[in-house]
C-alpha cells in the first residue's frame, strides 16, 4: 500500500534531537493515555490496567504485560509482532510486575504519523502513557535513535524519514532514568565497534533531555488534574 510522500519533511540538524510535543490523559476510556510527537512522527498510546486477565494468559506471581502495536495502514504483520515483543519486554523490565500478580497491564500504541525515528517514539509514547496511568515502575525508560550516513563521522540524532532512507546503519537505544544504563538496543545495517559506541554515548547524552521532558510533562499533567479536582 502506498501513501504519497508528505511534502514538508524538513531535515533535522545532526547533533540535536527534534522537538518533542506531548499531551497526556486525552482519552476518556483508557486509564492512562498520551500522544507524543518527535518532529513530525506522532504516536498515540493507551494503557489499561492493572486489570483482570484471561485465564490462559494468567501468571500467578506477576502481572502480564500485553503490548499491542497498531499500524496506520493494513493489518499488523511479522514486523509489528517483533516490535510488540521488543517494546513489551522493554516496558516489562521497568514495571514492578510482581506487585500485581494475576493481573494484566495492556499497552496499546497507535501509529499516527511515521516520519522517521519510529521505534524511539513508540517506546517513549508507551512509557509516557504508563506514567499517566500511574503504573508503579522501577525507573523511567526513554529511547533515542540515531543513524550513520555514508562518508560522515557524525551520527544524526532522531532522523527524519528522508534521512533514514540514506542511512547505512540505524540504531535505537532505550535507557533507564537512574543509572542511564541500556535497557533495550535495536540496530540495523553495518557499522564498526567504534561507531556503535559513539552512537551509544551520543544517544545516552541526548536521552537525558527526554527524561527532562517526561518530568515536565508529568508535572504539568499533575497540576492539571489538581485544577480539575
Amino acid at each position, binding site marked *: 500500500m502506498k*501513501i504519497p510522500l508528505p*511534502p514538508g519533511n524538513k531535515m533535522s540538524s545532526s547533533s540535536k534531537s527534534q522537538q518533542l510535543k506531548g499531551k497526556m490523559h486525552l482519552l*476518556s476510556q483508557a486509564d492512562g493515555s498520551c500522544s507524543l*510527537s518527535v518532529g513530525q512522527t*506522532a504516536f498515540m498510546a493507551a494503557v489499561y490496567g492493572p486489570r483482570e486477565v484471561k485465564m490462559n494468559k494468567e501468571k500467578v506471581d506477576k502481572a502480564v504485560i500485553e503490548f499491542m502495536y497498531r499500524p496506520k495502514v*493494513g493489518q499488523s504483520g511479522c514486523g509489528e509482532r517483533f516490535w510488540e515483543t521488543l517494546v513489551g519486554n522493554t516496558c516489562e523490565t521497568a514495571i514492578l510486575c510482581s506487585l500485581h500478580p494475576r493481573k494484566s497491564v495492556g499497552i496499546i500504541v*497507535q501509529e499516527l*504519523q511515521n*516520519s522517521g525515528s519510529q521505534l524511539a517514539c513508540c517506546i517513549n509514547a508507551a512509557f509516557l502513557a504508563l506514567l499517566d496511568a500511574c503504573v508503579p515502575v522501577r525507573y523511567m525508560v526513554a529511547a533515542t535513535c540515531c543513524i550513520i550516513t555514508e562518508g560522515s563521522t557524525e551520527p544524526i540524532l532522531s532522523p527524519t524519514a528522508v534521512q533514514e532512507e540514506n542511512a547505512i546503519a540505524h540504531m535505537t537505544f532505550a535507557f533507564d532514568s537512574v543509572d542511564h544504563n541500556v535497557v533495550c538496543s535495536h540496530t540495523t545495517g553495518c557499522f564498526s565497534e*567504534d561507531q556503535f559506541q559513539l552512537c551509544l554515548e551520543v544517544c545516552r547524552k541526548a536521552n537525558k533531555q527526554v527524561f527532562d521532558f517526561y518530568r515536565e510533562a508529568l508535572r504539568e499533567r499533575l497540576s492539571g488534574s489538581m485544577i480539575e479536582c
Partner: protein
Amino acid sequence: MGVNFQRLDGRGTYDYRKITITFGIDRGCCHVQIGDTRVMAQVSCEVTTPKQTRPNEGLLYVNAELSPMAAPHFEAGRPSQQGVELGRCLERCLKESRCIDTESLCIMSGMKVWAIRVDVHVLNHDGNLIDACSMAAITALTHFRRPDVTVSGEEVTILSVEDQDPIALGVHHMPICVSFAFFHQGKYLLVDPNEMEERVMDGKMVIGMNKHRELVTLQLTGSMLLHKDQVLRCTQIASTKVQEMTKLIEEALKNDVHERATGGQFGSASSQDPSHVTSHVTTEKTMEEVDTEALRELARETVLKGRETDRESPGMTRAPDITLLGKQTGRIGEGGLSSWDVEDIEESEEDDVEMIADTNVKVVRETSHISKCLGIDSSEDSEEDVTETLAAHHLGVHESSRGASGDTTIDLTTALNQQKRPAPGRERGKVKR
C-alpha cells in the same frame, strides 16, 4: 413521570457535541472528534487486477476495526458484534452508495486498476461511533490524492509525487451517517447519543444521507418498533444535520488546502494545542546540542577497554558463580543436608525391605555403567552378567579407582552402608506410601 427532559451533558435533544476535524501530514489522513469520541481514518492505494465481472472498475475496501485502545471491552482479533455492525454500515454508506467514481480508477481494462483502501481506527469510544467513522472516512477519501500513472502499450509507470502532482479521487457526493437513539419504545428520541445514553437506549436508527437529501442507508437496531411518521421525522432532522456537517467538512478541507499552499502548520503533530493544561512542548532552547567530539573519546576508551579484557581472558571474562554442593544435599533454596528424614522409626522397618530391593536395582545399573567406563572384563560375558556377580566391596574399589573424575553419581558404598538407617532413599519410600 419524573422525566426532566435533560441530557446528562446539558445538550438539547437535537444537538451534536463539538465536532473537530483535523488532517495528518499524509494525504488521506483525517482525525474526527465528536466530543470525546475520537476516530482516525487513513486512505491508501495500490494497483491490482480488477474483478472478472467488472473489468473496468477500481476497487474500494472499507476496513473498520474497534481498536482495544478505544474501550476496555474491545478485543483485538475476531471482530465483535458491534464491530461487524460498524463495518457493514460503513460499507453500505460508502461502497454501495457509489460515492467514489470507481471507473476513473481503471488503468488498463481487465488488467490493472487502483484499489483504494480506507482504514478506520477508533481511538476512543464515547458513543456514536458510526457518525464519527463515516465522517472521517468520507473526509479522508476527499482529502486523498493518488499518484499519477502513464500507460505506454502494456507498460504502466507510476509517477512519483515529485514528478507529477497526485490526483484527487472522483467523489460524486458525500454521504454521512446520523444516529438516533430511542427510549421508551420510541417515545423519546435523541440525536448523537454518547456512551452512557447508548447503554440505556431501547433502539437505534442510523440514517445515511448526503447534502442533496438523498437517502443512502437506513438501519434500525434494537427491540422496538417505530411509527412511520417518526421515521419520516428522523429523515428531516438528518437532512439538516447532514447539511451542517458537510459544511464543516468543506470548511476544514479548504483550510487544509490553504495551510498546505502557504506552508503553514498542519498535521497531527501541529494539532496538539500547547495551551491545553496537560500538554507539554519542549522549546527550541531546551533541546541542547550534543557535543559529539567529547563523546567520541569516551566511546573510544570503552572500546579499547573492552578489547583489553577480551585479550586478558579469552572466551569467558568472568568465572561463573557456581558452588558445588556435597553429595546427597538438597538443591532447593540454599542447599545443605537433606531435612526430609524426620524420625519415624516404627514405620521405617517395613520400608527398609523395599528400600534394599530398590537400591539393589540401582547398584546393578550403576555397576554396568562403571564397568563400561573402566573397560574391565566385559570380555565374553554380557554386561548384565558381570554386574550380577559384583558385590558391594567391589564397587568400593571401582569407585575409588575412578578418582577425581567421579562426578554426580551416587556414592554407592555409603548408600549400601546406610541401608540400616532410614537415610536418603527414605524420601522415595515415603512417596510410595
